[in-house]
């Protein structure tokens, strides 16, 4: 993999706030569903407030947390709807909690206004979307990955989020924990964009003895909505600490004072909440490379579909085909530089997706080579043979 390390950016930079803690579970092997993995990953990362509303195919996350919070001492609330769920999560975060909600498409749609509020007030929280076949009620028990652009653009106005795409139960656990760290480090909503298949998949995972968590940085008296720091992320105080906080979803200055007609305050705030994610994206984005060095055709894949893509690549390599795989573990912010680099070396990029080409369109913004989209929106996973056939026809 020589030549690729320079743009990997896969290691979380050690910084203030990081520390090692013992895992909540005893270290060793577990046989979990993806949804159970999410619940355990959240608990391991220090999540102690959860609010949710039942929705297929994510409900097992809520059920598992409701049981486990009794054991680890967290606050579980089943709310009256998804709007109340995410709003109460935001309230709990400002009261000092690491907090989360989980849902699926229809609930994710209801949460969008509050997601914008969280982005604008720089409230760290985690939303898990176990995607099902949409639009609307669609097929509640079937799979899709049609919510990726919604994750990016779902709320009104200009803002940034972080979104991760797990491909295994291990990653449901690991990335949920990572999502809490990213949320705290950048004071931003972080989405875990799972899919029905990985939510309900059962497989073996390994839980280590320790994990790294990110503690909220507190600087008493500092401006909670502005910073002189290079990373553009202000410190995060909580209610009840005597800070007399002003938190508002209206445009505000660095102390939270409402500024509803000041063009400078508006421009500064919008600019900073975008900049803090985009300018730190090399640190945030995680990818995996398989056989890229000599690949003529590259599959760019994410989520559950990447499992089939890897199978296809291995099969095609056995046939002597020069095919590689770029797996996007982080979907937002987008891995623009890596795609650009891949696109400059490959003849063609193939993008299999369980949506109508949401990410293939994104890749086209950054590459000049052919981008071939393969969309499947029938509520089924994409069979590896389909990927093999399509890629073969490209070579």
């Amino acid at each position, binding site marked *: 993999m020589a030549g690729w390390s320079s743009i990997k950016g896969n290691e979380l930079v050690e910084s203030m706030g990081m520390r090692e803690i013992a895992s909540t579970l005893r270290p060793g092997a577990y046989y979990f569903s993806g949804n159970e993995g999410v619940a355990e990953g959240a608990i391991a990362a220090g999540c102690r407030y959860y609010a949710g509303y039942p929705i297929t195919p994510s409900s097992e996350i809520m059920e598992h947390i409701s049981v486990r919070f009794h054991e680890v001492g967290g606050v579980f609330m089943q709310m009256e709807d998804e709007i109340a769920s995410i*709003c109460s999560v935001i309230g709990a975060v400002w009261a000092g909690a690491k907090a989360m909600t989980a849902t699926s498409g229809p609930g994710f749609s209801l949460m969008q206004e509050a997601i914008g509020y969280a982005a604008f007030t720089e409230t760290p929280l985690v939303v898990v979307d176990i995607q099902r076949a949409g639009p609307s009620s669609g097929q509640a028990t079937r799979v899709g990955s049609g919510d990726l652009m919604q994750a990016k653009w779902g709320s009104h106005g200009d803002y940034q989020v972080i979104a991760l795409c797990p491909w295994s139960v291990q990653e449901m656990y690991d990335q949920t924990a990572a999502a809490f760290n990213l949320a705290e480090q950048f004071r931003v909503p972080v989405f875990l964009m799972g899919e029905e298949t990985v939510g309900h998949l059962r497989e073996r995972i390994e839980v280590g003895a320790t994990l790294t968590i990110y503690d909220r940085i507190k600087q008493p008296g500092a401006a909670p909505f502005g910073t002189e720091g290079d990373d553009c992320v202000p410190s995060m105080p909580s209610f009840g600490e005597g*800070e007399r*906080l002003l938190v508002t979803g209206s445009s505000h200055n660095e102390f939270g004072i409402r500024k509803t007609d000041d063009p400078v305050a508006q421009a500064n705030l919008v600019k900073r909440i975008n900049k803090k994610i985009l300018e730190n994206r090399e640190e945030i984005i995680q990818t995996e490379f398989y056989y890229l060095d000599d690949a003529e055709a590259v599959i760019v894949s994410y989520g559950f579909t990447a499992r089939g893509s890897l199978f296809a690549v291995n099969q095609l390599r056995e046939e002597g085909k020069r095919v590689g795989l770029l797996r996007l573990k982080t979907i937002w912010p987008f891995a623009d530089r890596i795609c650009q680099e891949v696109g400059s070396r490959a003849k063609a990029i193939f993008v299999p997706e369980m949506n109508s080409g949401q990410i293939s369109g994104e890749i086209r913004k950054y590459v000049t080579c052919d981008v071939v989209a393969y969309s499947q929106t029938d509520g089924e996973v994409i069979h590896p043979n389909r990927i093999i056939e399509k890629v073969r026809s490209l070579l």
Partner: protein
Amino acid sequence: MARDLEAYLRPEVTSTPFCPGCGHGILMNLILRAIDELKLNMEEMLFVSGIGCAAWIPSPHFNADTLHTLHGRAIAFATGAKMFNPKLNVMVISGDGDLASIGGNHLIHGARRNTDLTVLCANNMIYGMTGGQVASTSPVGSFTSTTVEGNIYRPFDLCKLVLAAGALYVARYAVTQPRLLIDAIKKALGIKGFAFIEVLSPCPTQFGRRNQYDTPAEMLKRLKEVCVLEEDAKMLPSEELGERIITGEFTGGGA
């Protein structure tokens, strides 16, 4: 506002945004007076509000933690903060459109759960901030910017609604009943559970000018006349009760 309450206000805030004659300034005073009489520590208080004129009563004026949230969702935000940190003394202050219309579901579920919140609903019977549209609390026949021939729908009785949903303490007073209102707020703050006060607060700018109240003073005078205490209402013949608003405490079983 009287100078003796200045310590409860943020030093950097020097004026209120309310129109002349608005009842919300009076309500702001009465809330702080209740807090002052109870000698509550503002560092332990969290004021949560939604969107609308009444949501600006605590934010940014009160010198405490304030959470100015989304339209309708104040009780949901407050629930998360209170449930995670029960030491916070959480008061929700918002308007009728915010709490009872777009946020109506959170209001009844907050009451059902009996979450330990004090909820003050400043009811001006209209959407003030957006230009005087009809509300779910506007009286039948009232003129608004969206009912130019008079409102045809019945208003909510907010106290009955919240009481039926299970609140421990429910009261209704107008800003023209300041002493009774202060005492009710003090009582509500002492309730361990969901406490709700509907505060009638006149909006001369949007409601008054469309409904034959020529001056703010006239609107206040009319509000004084129309409000009748529950115990006095029992003495009134039913034909005199029609237009009157019954005020008082309508406590549930648990208070």
